[in-house]
């Protein structure tokens, strides 16, 4: 095992898989010579050359559109979108084409790739370097969505995603790119898609979250514990299709649910989780499920720490739910 942060772990996964499978191609803006603006692809250009680590013109639509063509040919593209906020020029290619290609061709054309992109707030990025658009992809049938919270999961999930037969959006929580440091197994291993992880057991309140907010939930849970409330924290890891069994099992145990995510509340993944829990564990609910989320405003610059659903906002929600 080695100590790695999330950037290093993702880089390690890319290098391993590019060695193992010569169909894997990385492309995007600034991913080549300079190794990405967050240095996630550092060193790959030197090791694999400019035909497998490709600096592209400044066009997300072009990146994803050509990557779809590459995938149809049989390559395994791993495009990087520099910030998730800049994925929208490619939205049409993703939702109209990538997500539907296998289906609309009656299974004749599997079309898979892993779109890596940094998400989330907390780096003083303002409107356009902070957003968390997972719901805008989950709502579209045909895509899988992943968001790791730590280095070891990031590596194992990315390896699983690249080998998965379906298109995957791989969201990297940039706030903890370097802070999420930990033991990362060497060599090849996967963390299966679709499996959540209970990162803290507890009997009183279930917190479902993912990405950088796992740390905020842990922080809030520790403080709640001091007040006698024990939280169980479910780190989803794969946001879609989500691990319904783990979520429901935890809620059946605690009877209380708090969902935490950075994206705006309305029509976010939180609402989906609340609805699923209603459908599958209604009679176990002892309190109304609560969502602690980003507000329904654009992501602000100066006030970002007020906007984000940090521990100071999670804690009161947990305590109120526990007391309900």
């Amino acid at each position, binding site marked *: 095992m080695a100590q790695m942060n999330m950037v290093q772990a993702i880089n390690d996964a890319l290098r391993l898989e590019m060695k193992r499978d010569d169909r894997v191609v990385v492309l995007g803006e600034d991913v080549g010579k300079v190794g990405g603006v967050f240095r996630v692809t550092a060193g790959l250009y030197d090791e694999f050359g400019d035909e497998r680590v490709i600096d592209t013109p400044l066009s997300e639509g*072009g990146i994803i559109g050509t990557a779809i063509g590459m995938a149809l040919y049989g390559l395994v593209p791993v495009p990087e979108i520099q910030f998730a906020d800049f994925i929208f020029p490619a939205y049409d290619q993703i939702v109209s084409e990538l997500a539907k290609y296998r289906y609309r061709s009656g299974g004749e*054309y599997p079309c898979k790739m892993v779109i890596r992109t940094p998400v989330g707030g907390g780096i003083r990025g303002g409107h356009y370097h902070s957003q968390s658009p997972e719901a805008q992809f989950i709502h579209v049938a045909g895509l899988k969505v992943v968001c790791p919270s730590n280095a070891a999961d990031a590596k194992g999930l990315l390896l699983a995603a690249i080998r998965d037969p379906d298109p995957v959006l791989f969201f990297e929580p940039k706030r903890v790119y370097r802070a999420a440091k930990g033991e990362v197994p060497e060599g090849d291993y996967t963390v299966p898609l679709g499996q959540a992880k209970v990162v803290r057991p507890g009997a009183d309140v279930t917190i479902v979250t993912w990405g950088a907010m796992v740390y905020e939930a842990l922080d809030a849970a520790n403080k709640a514990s001091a007040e006698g409330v024990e939280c169980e924290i479910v780190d989803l890891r794969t946001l879609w299709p989500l691990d319904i069994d783990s979520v429901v099992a935890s809620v059946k145990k605690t009877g209380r649910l708090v969902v935490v995510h950075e994206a705006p509340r309305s029509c976010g993944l939180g609402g989906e989780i609340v609805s699923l829990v209603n459908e599958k564990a209604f009679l176990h609910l002892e309190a109304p499920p609560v969502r602690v989320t980003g507000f329904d405003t654009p992501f602000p610059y100066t006030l970002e720490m007020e906007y984000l659903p940090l521990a100071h906002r999670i804690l009161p929600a947990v305590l109120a739910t526990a007391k309900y």
Partner: protein
Amino acid sequence: MTTVSTDRGPHHRSAERRPEDALAADVLRVMRPDGSLDPAADPHLSDAEVLALYRAMVRTRVVDERAVALQRQGRIGFHIGSLGEEATIVGSAFALRPQDWLFPCYREFGAALLRGLPLERYFDNLFGNAGDLAKGRQMPDHWCDREHKLGSVSSPIGTQITQAVGFAWAARLRRDDVVALVYFGDGATSSSDFHNGLNFAGVYRTPTVLLCRNNGWAISVPTERQTASEGFASKGAAYGVHGVRCDGNDLFAVVRACRDAIARASRGDGPTLVEALTYRLSGHSTSDDPKAYRPEGEVARWSELDPIERLRAHLVARGQWGAPAEAALHAELAEEVRASLAAAEKKPAPALASMFEDVYAEPPWHLREQREALLAGPRAKGHGG
């Protein structure tokens, strides 16, 4: 603010799309008005090839007209055809080598049939039945066929352009001698994907042939409302992409332009934007009534350049064709269409459960649940699900 008057600014030129445009000097043309071929540009097709292509063009038109009739009779929901564009569509597909791939827009069923898509399969697609390779999931004329190296038709305009560029790029990265030819209309040149596709093709010198079927119209919008440039081939220069205009109603010119472009791509000399000047003799689709926007007389004038008639005149002049052969061909095609249609129309709708397949490689829990709920529900019966 004052009322906006209409005495300035661009207008819909009500000028007709003139056949003369397709005959201008910078346009590659092989067939001369007298039906003979310009030896300087002649692609030198064998007699058998020319005959086969004539038959393919007529077959395309016969199927097309039949599909319109099916829609009028309410037997299929929709059809989008290629009346008048057969030389462009058949000639370009013919130019491809066996290893090359074809990325369709939506009017190119004639190209698909030429490459080997069985006619019955095409009808299966029009019916959206259980025999359709797309499993009845898409509208009519949205076919696909991997076996014959045909991409999947999708409705959003332009998306296939960038994809074909990526496909060809991948072939090049793999050192495979494979060219991708992609079709799109004049309207599609306004799409973002045209820009992205051309730009990536230019930068990475991908072996792609970008074939713009300039048929004068994008539904009701005429070409001069798509762009203020001089034609479409000239747009290649903005991307370092070679551009060529050809007479799209001249089979030989289309073959020549596409063969040159394929050879160029195969040699590693990069992509070509081929603009085929042609004309949509029908409405946009069975849903469209062109009378509302198309100037009188335009269709009549372009009918004089009908690609099938031009090719037939050439064959007749060459002594290769006559009324008996024409009659025999039509009889043969009528029988083929009748039989394929009868076979296709008999097939059932796709099974109910098939709705949940192929969203992912394996259906996850939520799709399994939704499938079970539907199958257990009041309508499940009678759908074979």
